[in-house]
């Protein structure tokens, strides 16, 4: 299949912003040795080359349909992988030099897919319509305050999280639990929908935004609260809470690890041979 390289490289070098760049270690295929590469993330594309100044790009990874997964530390490097769902599809092994780098790359890669952005835009679009409606005529009288993340939403999403299997975002029985969620470190970009993306006009979208709760009015009727069993692709809020939990977990693990840290044997993981 032809990928039209020039179009990709042109996009990389054009004026739109770069989303993240830096050195990472990339696992050489079929081996366990790492090579240091300069990575540039733009939109849903991850480019890599030997050094920042290089004209020659080594490769590009299209970031749709992959899960980002933290791995066990390897020789002092903070590893993570991008696992593409589907039989015969690749897993890319990457590693950062420190925890902060690992955390920020994982977060950036999680929010990189087109699918994710599409859901986020849809969600914000709804919030915008809602905000316009509320800011409407009687702005001075009706002081509607926007609730924060909302204990309601967070709890609901926690129960959702708890019921997630390690491979798929699936709805499950509601369980009220604080504390630790499933041990899975797997973070998924949402599976590509099995139906065509919903093209209903915004007017017909059910009003399910629990973040905007009028304080002076009655609680919205049941139908307007987010449902527990839903299609994750239809409600970005929950998808996001799920990711947010993973980032929190990353941070908690890092703090714990710092306390327990012991010295590791240093291995020469850096392979200077050609990739």
């Amino acid at each position, binding site marked *: 299949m032809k*990928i039209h390289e020039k179009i990709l490289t042109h996009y990389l070098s054009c004026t*739109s912003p770069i989303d993240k760049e830096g050195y990472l270690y990339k696992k050489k295929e079929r081996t366990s040795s790492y090579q240091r590469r300069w990575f540039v993330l733009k939109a849903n594309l991850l480019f890599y080359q030997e050094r920042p100044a290089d004209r020659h790009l080594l490769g*590009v990874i299209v970031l749709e349909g992959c899960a980002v997964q933290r791995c066990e530390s390897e020789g002092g490097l903070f590893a993570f992988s991008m696992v593409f769902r589907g039989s015969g599809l690749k897993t890319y092994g990457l590693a950062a030099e420190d925890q902060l780098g690992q955390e920020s790359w994982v977060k*950036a890669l999680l929010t990189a897919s*087109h699918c994710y952005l599409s859901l986020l835009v849809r969600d914000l679009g709804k919030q915008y319509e809602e905000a*316009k409606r509320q800011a409407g005529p009687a702005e001075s009288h009706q002081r509607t305050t926007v609730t924060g993340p909302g204990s309601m939403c967070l709890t609901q999403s926690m129960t959702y999280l708890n019921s997630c299997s390690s491979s798929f975002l699936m709805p499950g029985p509601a369980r009220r639990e604080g504390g630790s969620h499933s041990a899975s470190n797997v973070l998924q970009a949402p599976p590509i929908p099995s139906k065509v993306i919903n093209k209903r006009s915004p007017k017909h979208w059910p009003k399910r935004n629990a973040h905007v709760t009028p304080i002076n009015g009655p609680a919205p009727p049941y139908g307007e609260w987010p449902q527990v069993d839903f299609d994750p692709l239809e409600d970005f809020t929950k998808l996001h*809470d799920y990711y947010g939990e993973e980032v929190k977990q990353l941070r908690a693990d890092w703090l714990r690890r710092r306390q327990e840290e012991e010295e590791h044997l240093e291995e020469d993981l850096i392979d200077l041979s050609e990739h």
Partner: protein
Amino acid sequence: MRFNEKELISLSRQPSERAAELGMRGPKKGDVVKRRLVKLVVNFLFYFRTDEEEPQGALLLEQCRVEREDSLAFSITFLDEAERKYLFECDSQEQCQEWIDSIIKASYEFMRKNLIFYRTEIHRLTGKDPLEQYGIEDETRFQVTSGLHLMPKDI
């Protein structure tokens, strides 16, 4: 340049925003119109020979110009070069317009602009940054390009 071909091919098999058999003509002199199954998935335009399962090619729909060519045709120009202008022939005016709209809206950069607009507006209307609830307010990709930092409105 290496790329994750298998994964892209897998992506091309996903349900698409829009797919149809169109007449497609490449940019080079001497290229003729050929029937291709054209499929829009995320910000890629895949095109297949009509009897094949694997796409012949994938066009990244970023930094390109989409134009109406005549009542039934539109074109996509890459790199601002006439030598990279692809022509697509549709079966109806309506189909043609729908393709143009879909391709424009599929661009990541287009979506990013919308996001920034909504973010700014929601903040203006409510005093709150809607990305904070998701913990992504500091992600570079969602930054308001003017460099203005969103400050909470004093209540």
